[in-house]
C-alpha cells in the first residue's frame, strides 16, 4: 500500500515514517521493559535460602507479594526508616528543585535576552564545568568543604564564620547544596531554549501597550516560559529522586540518607526483594509529575495549534 503525500511530494509506503521509531522501540524493550520486568520478578520473587541472594520469579502466577506488601506497610507507618527517608528525599528534592529554578531562571533569562552575540560564550562558560564527571566534581567538593578547606578559609577570612564549620558531617544543607550544584545546568538548558524562542515582538507589544518591565515579565515572559520551567523541573527532579551518590560522598549519615541510598543498601544485601519493591514504589511516585508534565505539554501544543 502506498499513498501520496498531501503536499504532492514523493511516494512512501505507509510504514515508512513509523518505521523510524523501530530502533527506539527496540531500545526501550531491551533496556527498559525487560529490565523492569526483571525488577518486578525480583520484587515478587524469593531468596536463595542459603546465600540470601535474589531468586527472581518470572511467572506472574507465582509472584509473592510479601516483600512489596512489607515495603508499603512501612512507607505508611509513622517513624519507620522507609517513611522517614521518603519524606526526607521529597523535601530535599523539592528544595533543591526550587533552588535550581531560582538560580537557573535568571541565568537562562540573561543568556537568552541580553547576552546577544555572546550567547554561545556564556552558555559554554556556564556548562563547561559540568563536562567533568559528576563523581569528580563531588570529590572536589569534599576537599573544598573539609574543615581546613577553601570554603571555610574564605568564610573565616571575611568574618562570616568564627571557626571552621564541619560541612561534611551529616548536614542536610550540604546534601541539598550538592544536589543543586550537580543538577542546575539541566535546569538552565531547557529554560534557555524556551526563553530564547519567545518572540521579541510579543514582549515589545506588551511594552507598547503600556506594561512596565515587571508586568511584562509576569504577564508575558513567565507564562510563555512555563513549559521550560516544567521541563527543567522534571529533568532535574526525576534523577535527583534516585540520586544516592551525592549523599554518600557529602554526608553518609542516618540523618541525611535518601531514598536512593535505601534502595542501594537493600539490593546489595538480603533485603533485595524489598529493594526492588522500593524501585517500583519510586517509579509509581515519579509517574505523577511525569503525567502532569505530559498533560501540560499536550495542552500547550493544542493551544498553540488553535
Amino acid at each position, binding site marked *: 500500500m502506498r499513498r501520496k503525500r498531501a503536499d504532492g511530494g514523493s511516494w512512501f509506503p505507509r510504514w515508512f515514517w513509523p518505521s523510524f521509531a523501530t530502533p527506539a522501540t527496540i531500545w526501550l524493550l531491551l533496556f527498559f521493559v525487560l529490565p523492569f520486568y526483571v525488577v518486578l520478578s525480583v520484587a515478587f520473587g524469593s531468596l536463595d535460602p542459603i546465600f*540470601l*541472594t535474589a531468586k527472581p520469579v518470572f511467572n506472574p502466577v507465582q509472584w509473592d507479594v510479601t516483600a512489596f506488601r512489607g515495603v508499603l506497610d512501612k512507607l505508611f507507618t509513622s517513624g519507620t526508616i522507609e517513611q522517614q527517608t521518603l519524606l526526607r528525599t521529597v523535601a530535599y528534592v523539592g528544595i533543591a528543585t526550587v533552588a535550581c529554578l531560582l538560580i537557573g531562571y535568571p541565568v537562562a533569562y540573561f543568556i537568552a535576552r541580553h547576552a546577544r552575540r555572546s550567547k554561545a560564550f556564556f552558555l559554554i562558560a556556564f556548562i563547561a564545568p559540568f563536562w567533568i564527571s559528576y563523581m569528580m566534581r563531588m570529590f572536589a567538593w569534599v576537599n573544598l568543604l573539609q574543615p581546613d578547606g577553601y570554603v571555610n578559609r574564605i568564610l573565616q577570612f571575611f568574618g562570616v564564620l568564627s571557626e571552621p564549620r564541619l560541612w561534611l558531617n551529616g548536614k542536610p544543607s550540604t546534601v541539598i547544596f550538592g544536589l543543586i550544584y550537580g543538577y542546575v545546568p539541566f535546569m538552565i538548558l531547557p529554560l534557555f531554549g524556551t526563553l530564547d524562542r519567545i518572540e521579541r515582538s510579543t514582549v515589545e507589544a506588551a511594552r507598547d501597550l503600556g506594561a512596565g518591565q515587571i508586568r511584562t515579565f509576569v504577564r508575558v515572559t513567565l507564562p510563555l516560559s512555563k513549559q521550560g520551567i516544567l521541563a527543567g523541573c522534571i529533568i532535574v527532579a526525576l534523577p535527583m529522586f534516585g540520586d544516592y551518590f551525592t*549523599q554518600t560522598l557529602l554526608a553518609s*549519615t542516618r540523618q541525611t540518607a535518601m531514598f536512593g541510598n535505601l534502595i542501594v543498601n537493600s539490593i546489595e*544485601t538480603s533485603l533485595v526483594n524489598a529493594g526492588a519493591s522500593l524501585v517500583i514504589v519510586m517509579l509509581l511516585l515519579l509517574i505523577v509529575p511525569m503525567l502532569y508534565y505530559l498533560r501540560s505539554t499536550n495542552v500547550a501544543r493544542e493551544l498553540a495549534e488553535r
Partner: protein
Amino acid sequence: MAHPKDRRPPIDRREFMKRAAATGIALPSLAAILAACGSSSDSSSTAGGSASTAGLQLARPDNPITLPITADNPPIADGLPPESGPLKIFGYADYIWKKVRNQFGDSMGGVPIEYTVFDTPDEMVSKMQSNGSDFDLIVTVTLDNIGKLAQGALIQPLNHSYLPNVDSNLATGIPDFYDVGRAYSAPYVIYTTGIAWRNDLISDDILNMPNPYDIYWDTAYKGQTHLLNGSRDLLAVGLLRKGYDPNESDPAILDEVKQDLLDGADAMGWKYDHVDYTELGSNQWEVHNTWSGQMAYYQYYLPKGLDITALSYAWPPQGSGGKKGLLSHDLFAIPKGAASPVLAHEMINFLYDPTNAITNYSYEGYQPTVASFNEQSAIKDGYLPKSLTYTIVTPEMIPMGVTELELEPAVNQLYQQIYQEVTGGA
C-alpha cells in the same frame, strides 16, 4: 481516526490534583489488598526462601567442620601442567599488587593476568552464583562465607600437592575450624578490627578505657566518628561494647544492641565507610573503626603537616578493660569450573613464597599469613612505620580474638535489617 479536537480532552489541573490525591489514598489500600492476595507464609521477609537450610553446618571453634568433598566436585588431579591462561582473579581492589601479579605471570612464561574487582562479600557471593566459573581465583573469601560456598558447590577443593609453600610456610596458630584440613581454602591475610584515632586531637587513652568501644558513643566527637560500612562490623561494635559475642543470634539481645546503636547514630551522626585512609587527607574524622591492615596505608595519605605518629590504633583485648576484639583472616578459594585451576593453585603457592609475600605486603598493607613475616622485618625494611607496630597480629594475639562467623540465614538477614535501620541506608 478521530480528529484531535474530537478526542477526549486532557484532564484539567483540578481533575489532575483530584486523581493524584486519590492515588495517594489508594496506595495504602493497595497494601491491604496485596495483604489479602499474598501468600499465607510467615509475613517476615525471612520467609522468602523455599528450600531447606537444614544441611547448612555452622562452623565454630568448638564445632569444627570438615567440608565434604563430593564425587561431582573433586580437586584437580596431581601433576597437571599449568594452563596457558589467562588467570582470572576476582578480588577486592588492589588486594594483590599488580607488580606481584605480573611477576607471577612472568614466572609462568608470560601468562596474562586479568583482575576483576568486587566491593563487598555479598557482591562476591552473588556473582559467584551467577557466573563463578568465569574466574579462576577468589581473593578473598571471608570466614563467614567459606562454608556456604563449599556446601553450595561454588568452589572446588584444593589439591595441596600444588601448594607446598602453603603447607611449609603457613604461620602458626591460624585456626582452620571452618574448613578442617584446609580442603577448600588457604589463608591470605590476617588482621584485627579496632579503633583508629587522631592522638593530636584526642587525648583520651582509648586503649585503657574501661570500655574502649564507648569512644564511639562519646558526644565530644560527634560528627567526627566513622564506623565500618557492613552489617557484621557495625553489629559487632554494638555487641562487643555490651560484652556479647559478635555472632550473637538471640533476637532479644540483638534488639537491645539495635537500640544502643540507634541511640548512637542519632547522638553521634556516625558516618559509615571503609576508606578511612583516603579521608585522612581531608581531615574528615577523629575516630574511625577500621581494620589493622588499613593502617599501613595511612603513611601515604597524611594531610600536610601531619606526622604518622599522630595516628593511634587500639585493639581492645590488649587494653586494661579486657573487652573482646575482632581478629580474622581472609581466604583464597578456587571457583568450581575454573578454566585455569592449576594456575590458580600456582598463584596461591607463589604468594606463600616469603619474598613474594613481603613484596606484596609492601604495597597491599595487609599482613600475610606466612611464618617468616614479623614486625621487626616489616619495620626494618621500611614497610611499616615504627609507631604502627601494634597493628601487627602476633601469634600470641590469635587466641585473644573473636571472629565473625557464619550465621543462620534468618539471623544474617536480621543483622542486615538492623544495619539498614541504624544507617538508614547511608
